[in-house]
């Protein structure tokens, strides 16, 4: 039974490729979501997922599927810069500026894609991804982006930690906080680029938030947080693919694989939530008992 559930699906070449892609994205999302959660960049990340969309469309229109990654990359860098510079205007609050940028860019993408005859099919692919059709080249692209992001985080990881924890101290130490923010935004944008093909520009937000958010429910230690986050990211990809395969092959249910991966991530979050709540309750009970013992001793 476990073999049929967890091993058999991935002996098919297309499923093996999908798994490779999902595991890479799980590592990437697991690491970067720690930055997103610690810096409270959830809304910025959401904006980035939408602002990359027109780049995906333009890349596709200009050069076919091979152009998607380059269009996405261009718009990812552009929006990372815009998101860093934009909130500096005092009269428009940051969330309002983000909302304008998000919807404006997103609409450009929709307008462009709506001019095509295969409008709905294209739109669905761009928004929700097609992880089962990733090819070798796309896996290599994801691997390269993952390597670049991990390298960037190796260079400025501790500085990003300081900036997230205490921006005042970072500035006082002479770090250029704006530059560190730009790096963080670029890293998030790169995840969107890497994940476009597999889960689409909309669902990638789950990859950017859920792993670290789930891990945060279980631990307050940074190193453990990163490890658990990567585990949740990769496990979510693996379980999601296995589940969508089971459903379609044995139960005749066609589940969108990208969305199933996201559902698996959310399910892991729920598990983390319950485990975390139980552990906290257990901790409280132990503390109460200790207190009761102390009171009894005193009496």
């Amino acid at each position, binding site marked *: 039974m476990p073999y049929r559930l967890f091993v058999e699906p991935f002996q098919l070449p297309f499923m093996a490729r999908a798994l490779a892609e999902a595991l890479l994205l799980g590592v990437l999302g697991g690491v970067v979501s720690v930055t997103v959660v610690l810096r409270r960049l959830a809304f910025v990340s959401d904006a980035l997922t939408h602002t990359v969309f027109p780049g995906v469309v333009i890349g596709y229109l200009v050069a076919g599927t091979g152009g998607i990654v380059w269009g996405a990359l261009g718009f990812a860098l552009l929006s990372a810069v815009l998101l860093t510079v934009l909130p500096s205007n005092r009269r428009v609050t940051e969330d309002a500026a983000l909302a304008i940028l998000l919807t404006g860019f997103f609409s450009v993408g929709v307008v462009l894609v709506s001019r095509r005859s295969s409008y709905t099919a294209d739109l669905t692919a761009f928004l929700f991804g097609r992880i089962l059709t990733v090819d070798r080249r796309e896996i290599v692209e994801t691997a390269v982006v993952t390597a670049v992001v991990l390298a960037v985080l190796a260079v400025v990881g501790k500085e990003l930690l300081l900036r997230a924890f205490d921006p005042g*101290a970072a500035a*006082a130490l002479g770090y250029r906080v704006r530059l560190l923010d730009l790096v963080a935004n670029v890293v998030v944008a790169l995840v969107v680029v890497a994940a476009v093909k597999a889960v689409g520009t909309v669902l990638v937000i789950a990859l950017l938030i859920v792993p670290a958010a789930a891990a945060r429910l279980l631990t307050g230690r940074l190193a453990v947080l990163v490890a658990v986050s990567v585990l949740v990211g990769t496990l979510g990809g693996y379980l999601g693919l296995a589940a969508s395969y089971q459903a379609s092959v044995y139960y005749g249910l066609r589940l969108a694989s990208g969305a199933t991966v996201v559902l698996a991530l959310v399910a892991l979050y729920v598990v983390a939530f319950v485990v975390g709540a139980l552990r906290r309750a257990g901790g409280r009970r132990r503390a109460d008992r200790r207190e009761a013992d102390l009171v009894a001793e005193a009496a």
Partner: protein
Amino acid sequence: MADRELSPALQFEHASVAYGRTPVVEAVHGDVHPGEAVALIGPNGAGKSTLIKAVLGLVPVVGGRITVLGRTPAQARREVAYVPQADTLDPEFPVSAGQVVLMGRYRRIGWVRRPRREDRQVAAEALRAVGLADRAGDRFGLLSGGQRQRVLLARAIAQQPRLLLLDEPFNGVDAVSQDALLTALHGLRAGGAAVVVSTHDLALAHLTCDEVCLLNRHQFAFGPTEQALTPELLRAAYGGQALVTDEAVVAR
């Protein structure tokens, strides 16, 4: 304790600092020498925090001059340590006390590199100096307010600064932590560091500092504590909000 022979660690020359066009603090004039401690005293909104940010080079000096260790504030940053109020930091943030103290070493460690054994030793010594040697592994947010403030002072000590700036370090701090902070500050001054403490606690200003800069938008006094904290000057700076008794001066 002060060594008058040395050039000042911090020098204000009729300095005015401003956000945008309107000056927040004007006409600050005085020196802080190595080993000396100066209290910045004034009511809320007097501009104490802004003046500290100007010394860090984060708020522009629009008139006069501020010289830090013989250089401009921005050039001197690496030798200046800043201690924020502990309650401005997120207690849920997943870092340990030891990790926070190590942050004081980041500029010396540089990009890419990880902390070396020397950095970890300095950080451990800094935690010992504030009496928290055994708490390095504890999560920052789970410590008491006073202990968190001590960890932030330890981070500043780990930076091995020549000038230390503290923003209201005694706010909401219990007696044990207050003692630990005072002892650690004393140690830093003995080592030749100059210290600037912003506070509205006049009793603590008496206890920690030998000089006072009395502020409210502009400078009312800068000099030895006894001369600067007179009832007349305090009334002037606090606009009649200071309660002056025989024993002590209480600012409201």
